């Protein structure tokens, strides 16, 4: 959905965003349209590693035809504002899968906004989102799932976990379910935590220095998100960018 006027706090999808940054690049381009044909299986690999200070807003309007599948891997770690949105409509027995990591430091705002429209029966969706925020960074995940009256046997899941590395870092999670069908499974979970002090001491007691211990725990926190990426070169690129970013968080 293209909003012509500059967004405000009243727009639910912009509630935690960096509105000043958005205003500077407004209006943004129309959403990228992705159409998955019935029965087709597609993947999308998205690396948002914009330069320092850059304002990146990427909207996606996705339609998945009956029995089609779209699997998205997203690493959102660059820019002053890094905002990625998906508006997805699923037809009968379609499947949408999203595995995403948000890694931010300094004063970055990184966000992921998803709206899943389970329009027809028996479609499935699974979203796994991990966020790491250091410094004064803000990470946001707003995930809306709408299940239409006819969309029986919908199976939708959403998992968000955030790790805050300092008192001034922020994570916002807003799961939102609108269910009009009566035979559906919708699971969602959100948790926000800090590095495990017991694990840090255990690692130190074995001789691992604090910086390495922290890096190992953070890598473990996002481990597995990108393991099933088909393209090995892309997987390596994600791992390299993620590691460099985690090291830069200090």
């Amino acid at each position: 959905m293209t909003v012509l006027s500059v967004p405000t706090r009243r727009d639910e999808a912009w509630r935690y965003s960096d509105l000043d940054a958005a205003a500077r690049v407004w209006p943004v381009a129309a959403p990228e349209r992705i159409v998955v044909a019935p029965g087709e299986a597609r993947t999308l690999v998205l690396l948002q590693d914009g330069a320092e200070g850059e304002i990146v807003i990427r909207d996606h309007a996705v339609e998945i035809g009956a029995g089609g599948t779209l699997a998205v891997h997203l690493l959102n770690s660059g820019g002053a504002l890094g905002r990625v949105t998906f508006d997805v409509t699923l037809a009968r027995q379609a499947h949408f899968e999203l595995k995403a990591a948000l890694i931010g430091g300094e004063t970055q705002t990184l966000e992921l906004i998803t709206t899943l429209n389970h329009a027809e029966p028996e479609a499935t969706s699974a979203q796994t989102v991990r966020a790491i925020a250091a410094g004064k960074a803000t990470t946001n995940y707003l995930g809306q799932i709408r299940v239409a009256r006819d969309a029986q046997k919908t199976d939708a899941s959403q998992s968000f976990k955030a790790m805050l590395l300092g008192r001034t870092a922020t994570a916002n999670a807003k799961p939102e379910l609108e269910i009009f069908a009566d035979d559906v499974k919708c699971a969602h979970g959100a948790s926000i935590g800090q590095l495990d002090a017991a694990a840090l001491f255990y690692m130190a007691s074995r001789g691992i220095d604090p910086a390495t211990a922290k890096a190992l725990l953070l890598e473990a926190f996002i481990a597995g998100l990108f393991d099933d990426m088909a393209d090995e070169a892309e997987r390596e690129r994600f791992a390299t960018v993620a590691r460099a970013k985690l090291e830069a968080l200090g």
Partner: protein
Amino acid sequence: MLTIDNLHTEIDGKAILKGLSLSINAGEIHAIMGPNGAGKSTLAYTLGGRPGYEATQGSATFNGADLLDMEPHERAAAGLFLGFQYPVEIPGVSNVQFLREALNSQRRARGEEPLSAADFLRLAREKAALLGMDMEMLKRPVNVGFSGGEKKRAEMVHMGILDPKLAILDETDSGLDIDALKTVGAGINAIMRAPDKAVLLITHYQRLLDYVRPDFVHILAAGRIVKSGGPELALALEKEGYAEVIAA
């Protein structure tokens, strides 16, 4: 090797250790026994440097260095090993990765070359075999899904790989069945019984001491060592209980 003099430790402002003194020489195995709440685990954590365990008085000197002035990872690199009563689970980090980082961090701190992946795996395999632990388990995340006994065996594999000078083992025998106790006891002897090494065993029970014979036994009560003796002291405790032996 380790000299503890008049050590006082507080947790959240509450005094737990109240003037503990103890001296351990190379080649010796010491056991500390004591009732619940005496401060046994506090002693282990204070020596290991756990945040929140504040030494307010006294000193601990390890091979000439001020132990209490070192960061926990520096204590490890200096040759101190802390065996945990409740080993910590670390999802997403494999034992192999964890231990290789640990060993190479220690080696770097000592100015030694890091071990190659192949050399490390050879070492890990050898130490795992010593403790009867399947190498497959070492590929799994640290302590995740391990039974109580497996965690304690894994602790001893850590010790074997890291090859410390002084091991402080906090209730390594708890949660072990008889077979595991034998294996762990044999492991401690194989890894740590040497003229240039020493062990401080912290335990509730005599039974581990049947397999790892201590040279000295100390009784810790209310934050101080109230009695010291040879192995016979542990036997007397087992027979008569803490109250009797402390009063005698």
